[in-house]
């Protein structure tokens, strides 16, 4: 029964999508995907998402570190706040950021219709991914291994680099992969602040929507399929790298 | 009461039960004893209906229950890790089976209180399993299983998760409970001391087969093969024979290794050995020896009196003789 349900809801629509993308044959698919506007949007999308993923990898780890290893008043509140981007509708995120960085910005900082604006919006919605992936792993880290390293003369930076980071790496990579996959597909949070300028700030999701609106379903389907493939590849690669790291740690026991 | 005939159970190519047949008399407390992987839990769970057999039958009170679900077999089952219903109180746990059978509330209330008194948890009705110790949880599990008056009580290593002291206390307590309640009980254990202490009959299992069935005394004094003899009680190897350490007589002269009244008529293989260590274990003394002829080490167990009389010390030479060597003719499963 479970398989039936999952197939009906998840697999069937995706199959229909894939089939439609090829309804003009492989040539049609290829043309749709290599149209200059399509390539440009993919470039913008992936480029911005990589930047956001990198920011998340670093800042997410720092935030997780502070939440696990540090103590300060209001820490519980801050911890709960991390999930806000998960709970918040994406369109609300878009308009919230717009109120600060848009035409009515109180600080005169206008970032709408720019790539940095895209980055900020995507960083907002992907914040929880790396943080929540790293926190539980950081909690589980064996402090005694750190203490052993210290007793052998390693300074903090070395301890972090050689003892802590390898343990965190799989989680960081996993979270970054999720953040990347989310970023490339994001629509609601950038629809108001992005500006939808082709070749500059138009992301793949906006391009696809546009293609549907001008009644070019094959183009939309084809680019959709490419977007899916990029997401899968990214998730797969990062998960593979992460599990290799995990396996190495497990064999060490 | 319970008859298992030709039971077979395979997991892939691994035979957990290999043509097992067993009779369990009504009202007895039978132990299924064996090492890990011997199939004892599988056999118990097959009797319960929690595992299905690939071949063979199970009869309970004359009824063929081989294809009957556990719900309908009228059994009580106690798990090693208690399987307590964590979100229910002790009262609700014990009452569960009765509630399912839709017994009237006053009857349930009365039965639950009675049982909790019997298992020594009177007053614990409103507690939750998380607030109980391991031993208390297991007693609650017993009360729960007995609440529905099962015709058979099955216990799967019930004391395995408990501390040593609690384990010994509870098994004595279980024996007393059985003597009062007289439900046909089958107990799975890997602890031979537990089996000897508690059971009327023991079935020794190894690698999916039953090696021997009998009373504790029968199995100890007349083991049918080396596996049973080694598993139940300690053994020493003397001249290629398996003997019980307390059946080895020591003496300073070859003749003195014979009992007074035996004379020199039969010398059952007297062995010259060197004392390596004398261990005083309280009421008995273990003498660790080395066979001078073969270099093999072995142990003998003597009473304090004998040890005093002999006055043994490390390095000395003694003569050892087995006063009793069971005939182990059956070939054990290898």
């Amino acid at each position, binding site marked *: 029964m479970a398989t039936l349900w999952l197939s009906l809801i998840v697999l069937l629509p995706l199959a229909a999508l894939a089939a439609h993308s090829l309804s003009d044959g492989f040539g049609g698919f290829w043309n749709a995907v290599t149209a200059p506007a399509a390539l440009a949007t993919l470039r913008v999308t992936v480029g911005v998402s990589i930047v956001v993923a990198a920011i998340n990898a670093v800042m997410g780890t720092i935030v997780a570190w502070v939440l696990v290893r540090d103590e300060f008043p209001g820490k519980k509140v801050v911890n709960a706040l991390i999930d806000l981007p998960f709970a918040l509708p994406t369109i609300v995120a878009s308009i919230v950021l717009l109120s600060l960085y848009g035409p009515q910005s109180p600080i005169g900082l206008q970032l709408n219709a720019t790539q940095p604006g895209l980055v900020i919006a995507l960083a907002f919605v992907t914040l929880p991914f790396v943080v929540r992936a790293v926190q539980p792993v950081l909690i589980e880290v064996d402090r005694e291994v750190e203490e052993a390293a210290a007793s052998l003369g390693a300074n*903090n930076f070395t301890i972090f680099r050689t003892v802590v980071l390898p343990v965190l790496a799989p989680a960081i990579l996993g979270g970054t992969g999720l953040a990347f996959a989310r970023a490339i597909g994001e629509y609601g949070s950038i629809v108001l602040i992005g500006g939808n300028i082709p070749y500059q700030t138009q992301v793949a999701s906006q391009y696809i929507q546009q293609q549907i609106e001008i009644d070019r379903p094959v183009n939309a389907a084809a680019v959709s399929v490419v977007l899916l493939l990029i997401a899968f590849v990214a998730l797969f690669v990062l998960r593979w790298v992460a599990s290799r790291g995990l396996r190495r740690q497990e064999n060490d026991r | 009461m319970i008859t298992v005939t030709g039971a077979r159970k395979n997991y892939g190519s691994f035979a957990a039960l290999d043509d097992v047949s067993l009779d369990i008399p009504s009202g007895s407390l039978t132990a299924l004893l064996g090492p890990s992987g011997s199939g004892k839990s599988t056999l118990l769970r097959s009797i319960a209906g929690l595992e299905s057999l690939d071949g063979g039958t199970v009869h309970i009170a004359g009824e063929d229950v081989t294809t009957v679900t556990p719900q309908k077999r009228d059994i009580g089952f106690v798990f090693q890790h208690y399987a307590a219903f964590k979100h229910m109180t002790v009262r609700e746990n014990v009452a569960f089976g009765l509630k399912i059978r839709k017994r009237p509330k006053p009857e349930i209330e009365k039965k639950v209180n009675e049982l909790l008194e019997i298992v020594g948890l009177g007053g614990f009705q409103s507690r939750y399993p998380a607030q109980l110790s391991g031993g208390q949880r297991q007693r609650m599990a017993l009360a729960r299983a007995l609440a529905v008056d099962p015709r058979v009580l099955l216990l799967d290593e019930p004391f395995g998760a408990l501390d040593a002291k609690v384990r010994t206390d509870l098994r004595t307590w279980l024996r007393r409970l059985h003597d009062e309640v007289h439900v046909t009980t089958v107990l799975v254990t890997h602890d031979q001391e537990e089996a000897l202490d508690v059971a009327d009959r023991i079935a020794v299992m190894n690698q999916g087969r039953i090696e021997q069935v009998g009373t504790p005394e029968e199995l100890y004094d007349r083991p049918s093969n080396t596996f049973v003899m080694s598993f139940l009680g300690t053994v020493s190897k003397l001249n290629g024979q398996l003997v019980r350490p307390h059946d080895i007589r020591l003496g300073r002269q070859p003749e003195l290794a014979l009992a007074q009244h035996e004379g020199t008529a039969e010398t059952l293989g007297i062995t010259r050995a060197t004392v390596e260590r004398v261990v005083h274990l309280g009421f008995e003394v273990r003498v660790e020896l080395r066979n001078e002829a073969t270099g093999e080490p072995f142990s003998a167990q003597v009473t304090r009196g004998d040890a005093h009389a002999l006055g043994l010390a490390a390095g000395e030479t003694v003569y050892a003789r087995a006063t009793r060597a069971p005939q182990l003719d059956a070939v054990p499963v290898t």
Partner: protein
Amino acid sequence: MNVSLPVKISLRTIALGYLFVLLLVPIGVILYRTFENGIGAFAESISTPAAISALNLSLLIVAIVVPVNVVFGIVVALALVRGRFPGRRLLQAVVDLPFAVSPIVVGVALIMLWGANGWFGAVESLGFKVIFGLPGMVIATIFVTLPFVVREVEPVLYEIGEEQEQAAATLGADTWQTFWRITLPAIRWGLTYGVVLTVARALGEFGAVIMVSSGFPGVSQTLTLLVHARYIDDHNTFGAYSAATLLMAIAVIVLLLMTLLDRKRSTEE
């Protein structure tokens, strides 16, 4: 490792500063903008007929999506944890798929399936509109919320093991009784957490819904579509802000519930 005080303070400052600038400042600005003309203006803006009908539509979708996901989510979780069949890994991956799919792509895929030229396009001739109708919005929302209940219930099912259920069987309980009295109570906090996540996502879904909805105010506009329409179509910035604030308030309540439930979940272990 014992971090020196200056390093600790700098890390703390960087982390909190980042969070402050990224999360709190924008929210502060919008709250200010929403309420700078008084609560009255806010209340008015969210009680227009269009707003009320948008709220009703959003809640209606949630009311359909949650029970569906609870039932099928538990079924799938049971299959993944207790089932013994080949291809379980694959099933697990399928459950996670909605996380990797862009909402716009969800909308496009559903159009390819249920739209006029889609595989099931014939349904339209039965007078039953999926795309540009409520069913389409519901299906789109189910797609994106599918993983939540499954992923929250799965680990709990795994944790509690099968022994309690087996004990119930030996005590006479049949499959339904065992599920209702033993399994369900055991998974209740994981289930509730999953439901909260589902509600939050269902209320907040935008990209998929905008593709499959006709977006007529008062008819097929959810709250999220209302926010978008007010800004883009009506140039009613204030209206968009207040609708967004309403949604944000709901999100905060959801967040509170999540935090409370999280504590309940961990103390139950």
